[in-house]
């Protein structure tokens, strides 16, 4: 996923220097709804001998079928047993972005205020089996809108299957740099719909929960998980902030450092998956607890975040001729803003933020797809925290996303298989409310609907 701190935050684009900790609370929006990274890696197909369509709805990542879920939980190590597989892949995402009304300032110094044709991502991956029980997904991404490259998602896993009570049980460890990147169910924010979106348009409001991309690529974490009988999934882990020097070495902008994470940081996940081959469903709960000291002072006041989410999904797979999916999630975040309050950057010491997402898709012949989603972000008002660029001190944003796409390859007899895949699509994001209001949310006459974003994209991997 892209990390675009200077372009992602409208507040910064407007030249308003907001402290990074404040941004975590109030300005993670384009992380949340904006550019989503993309997983559709032919190196996995080459390793397993399977088609992209075996593991991905619509024959393109990152939307996983139950087979894809098992492959990820298995540590990216499953194979057809043949030697000579090289776990390397590449990916390009480019597109044309048009917003209903031109933006107040150009999203980046290399783009215009509207009608941008961009190379959004050029990524290289080490992705696949490294040893019998060791696999990795490591992504390095060049951002064509920023002319900048950085370490993107990292998920290195060790996993092994044991017999527990007569049932196969996978035990694994994930080391990763983004809470939720290790999750296999496409309901949490990191891998949720839309699976790609414009780097220079609008994908959501500016406020987002912490687990919704607020820490990505600036932390390192480890979690242990178990997957019993292809059904019950349980995971627990913890995270620490990367030092500022490591963040800089891996390409992250120094201005985006969120500070130091408390030692009691906990990530947890519990889910059930039922795979009937012709259809499947999942249901689960997840959470993330941490406290952040923005100035990295050991005795300084902290901002506390307590995120709890529930999620569910359903897939009709049938004979794979007609495939339908529904995903939903709800995240509730409680905040205790001791540092922000002390420094006069929040009116209230406590507050909350809720995010609801629901989306559905239909694919014909694993090639032609249509999708629609609804996103609703609501939270308690705070006139200081949600000040510049917000109306009424409110973080509320609501909107919808519609997408149609064509994935000509990725099937058994496809051209270039298993070396190439392609998705062409058109996506439209429309806003009913943005940063607290339908009209004039920024005080300068900009309406929510002015941010409606058309994105035509080409997304290829090899």
């Amino acid at each position, binding site marked *: 996923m892209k990390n675009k701190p200077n372009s992602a935050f409208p507040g910064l684009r407007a030249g308003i220097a907001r402290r990074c900790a404040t941004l975590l609370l109030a300005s993670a929006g384009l992380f949340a709804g904006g550019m989503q990274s993309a997983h559709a890696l032919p190196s996995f197909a080459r390793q397993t*001998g*399977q*088609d992209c369509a*075996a593991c991905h709805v619509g024959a393109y990542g990152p939307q996983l079928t139950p087979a894809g879920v098992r492959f990820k939980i298995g540590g990216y190590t499953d194979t*057809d*047993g043949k030697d000579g597989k090289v776990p390397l892949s590449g990916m390009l995402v480019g597109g044309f972005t048009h917003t209903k009304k031109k933006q107040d300032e150009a999203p980046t110094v290399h783009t215009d205020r509207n009608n941008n044709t961009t190379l959004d991502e050029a990524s290289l991956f080490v992705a696949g089996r490294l040893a019998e029980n060791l696999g990795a997904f490591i992504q390095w991404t060049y951002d064509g809108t920023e002319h900048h490259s950085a370490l993107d998602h990292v998920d290195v896993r060790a996993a092994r299957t044991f017999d527990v009570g007569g049932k196969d049980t996978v035990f694994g460890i994930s080391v990763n740099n983004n809470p939720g990147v290790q999750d296999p169910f496409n309901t949490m924010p990191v891998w949720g719909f839309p699976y790609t979106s414009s780097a220079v348009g609008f994908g959501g409001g500016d406020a987002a929960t912490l687990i919704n991309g607020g820490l990505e690529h600036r932390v390192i974490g480890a979690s242990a998980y178990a997957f019993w009988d292809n059904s019950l999934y349980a995971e627990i882990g913890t995270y620490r902030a990367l030092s500022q020097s490591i963040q800089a070495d891996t390409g992250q902008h120094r201005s985006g450092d969120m500070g130091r994470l408390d030692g009691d940081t906990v990530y947890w996940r519990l889910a059930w998956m039922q795979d009937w081959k*012709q259809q499947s469903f999942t249901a689960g709960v997840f959470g993330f607890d941490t406290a952040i000291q923005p100035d990295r002072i050991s005795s300084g006041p902290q901002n506390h975040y307590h995120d709890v989410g529930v999620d569910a999904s359903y897939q009709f*797979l049938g004979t*794979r*001729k007609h495939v339908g999916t529904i995903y939903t999630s709800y995240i509730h975040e409680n905040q205790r803003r001791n540092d922000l309050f002390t420094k006069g950057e929040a009116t209230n010491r406590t507050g909350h933020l809720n995010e609801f997402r629901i989306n559905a898709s239909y694919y014909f012949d694993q090639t032609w797809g249509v999708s629609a989603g609804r996103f609703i972000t609501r939270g308690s008002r705070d006139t200081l925290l949600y000040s510049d660029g917000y109306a009424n001190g409110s973080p509320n944003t609501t909107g919808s996303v519609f997408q149609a796409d064509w994935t000509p390859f990725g099937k058994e007899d496809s051209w270039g298989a298993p070396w190439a895949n392609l998705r062409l699509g058109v996506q439209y994001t429309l806003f009913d409310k943005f940063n607290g209001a339908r009209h004039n949310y920024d005080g300068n006459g900009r309406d929510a609907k002015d941010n409606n974003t058309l994105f035509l994209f080409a997304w290829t991997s090899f």
Partner: protein
Amino acid sequence: MALMKKRMIVPVRLLYGLCLMTLAGAAVPAHAAGDIHRGEDVFAQECAECHSVREGKNKKGPSLFAIVGRKAASIGDVVYSDALRQSGLTWNATSLDSYIAAPRKAVPNGKMKYDGLGDAKAREDLVAYLATLH
């Protein structure tokens, strides 16, 4: 000329179909009642992630083209488990049915990651479909 060719095709197809039915019947007498079309759907639902029915197309598992009558673990381009190689199985209606029903019971320590298909009618349809793959 084109009309003549068309007329020729019909009996040839009929003959080909009869041959297939005869072969299938000879190979899998216990599954003659299986619904081939439904079996094709069962294949798509249960097997196609890992197997192809195209000749020479080995995916994670071997091609199932001409599976009936074939000795287990006999395709050179596929990495089989020791257990399957040493099983001495030849795929026919009975061995396919029991393997598909419970792979790990039929071939302990095999590598096929499939829990099995409990529906006997679905297995019957599937085996009937597999028997047509020649």
